């Protein structure tokens, strides 16, 4: 990559709208799985540098420890990762909604993390794919950490990338202490491909 990737206002608006529809589909599935109402905010779309990425992660932390799962997806020249970050305080409420009995140990928390990741990641990734007419391959989810601080999620990795397009979706569930963030992260090359794909959606 020689030049910095930039998004025009129209392009940013387009990604926001595409994500809005995809996250609506994801929320619908989560809502039906848990029997709740999922609060949907407007997604944040930004091109960020590696340092800003680490700061974005830190800002999601709050006072709580987190658990995180990430899953890669790829197709039609577009590659990225879905990073699902869960506030650990959320687990007991989710356990109730999913009817997991008794006290939770790390094993059960992992089960719930995977259950929620499967629903949210899958619906978002395929939801975006559906609107762009792409059938994305999804890799197995990988646990980045359980009960850790965000700083530990990305320690000492050799960074081969400069910029990423980050789409941040925050899910909260009404009347429950459940809070998770889904970060869709696209590589620099992908953004160029996607800008070409969405240009037909932007044409008058």
């Amino acid at each position, binding site marked *: 990559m020689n030049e910095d990737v930039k998004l025009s206002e129209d392009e940013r608006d387009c990604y926001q709208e595409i994500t809005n529809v995809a996250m609506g589909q994801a929320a619908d599935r989560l809502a039906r799985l848990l029997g709740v109402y999922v609060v949907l905010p407007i997604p944040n779309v930004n091109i960020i540098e590696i340092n800003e990425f680490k700061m974005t992660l830190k800002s999601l932390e709050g006072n709580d420890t987190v658990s995180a799962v*990430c899953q890669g997806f790829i197709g*039609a020249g577009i590659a990225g990762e879905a990073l699902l970050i869960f506030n650990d305080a959320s687990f007991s409420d989710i356990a109730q909604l999913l009817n997991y009995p008794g006290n939770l140990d790390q094993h059960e928390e992992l089960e719930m993390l995977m259950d929620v990741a499967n629903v949210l990641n899958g619906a978002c990734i395929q939801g975006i794919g559906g609107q762009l007419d792409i059938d994305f391959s999804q890799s197995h989810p990988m646990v980045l950490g359980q009960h850790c601080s965000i700083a530990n999620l990305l320690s000492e990795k050799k960074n081969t990338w400069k910029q990423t397009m980050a789409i941040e979706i925050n899910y909260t569930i009404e009347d429950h202490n459940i809070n998770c963030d889904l970060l869709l992260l696209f590589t620099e090359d992908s953004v160029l491909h996607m800008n070409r794909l969405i240009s037909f959606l932007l044409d008058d």
Partner: protein
Amino acid sequence: MSDTDTDMTEFHWFMDILQTIDAGLVVLDRQYNIKLWNGFMENHSGIRPDQAKGSNLFELFSEIDQDWFMKKAEAVFLLNTRAFTISEQRPYLFKFKNNHPITGRAEFMYQNSTMIPLNNIEGATDHICLIIYDVTAAAMHKFDLAQKLK
């Protein structure tokens, strides 16, 4: 449902599964031309099935060491036996990007592969199927362990 209908349904299921499965499937003929190319291969290579089918494997993917690969594959064609390669021998066959391009460390996807003989009605092996597995996570762990033990 009649027997034919059941067969057709099962056939469609298999086709769907082979397209979505998280492993690469490539069928090659005796001249190493590509006859089958599944969703995994398409999405990781950026080459569509209609582009891949009929093309020669080594022409499309110059990163594959032709002599090394053919030695392994010929054994499968001639002996009707399976062959395996592991990432410790060669990190990859196809140079694909790491599935975790943002949070991951590896520069590319580490791969294990299996080659299985496919026989015709006469029992001769006239095609082979190459199955590609992503073993990047395991490879990274092994690497970390080796570093710690130094």
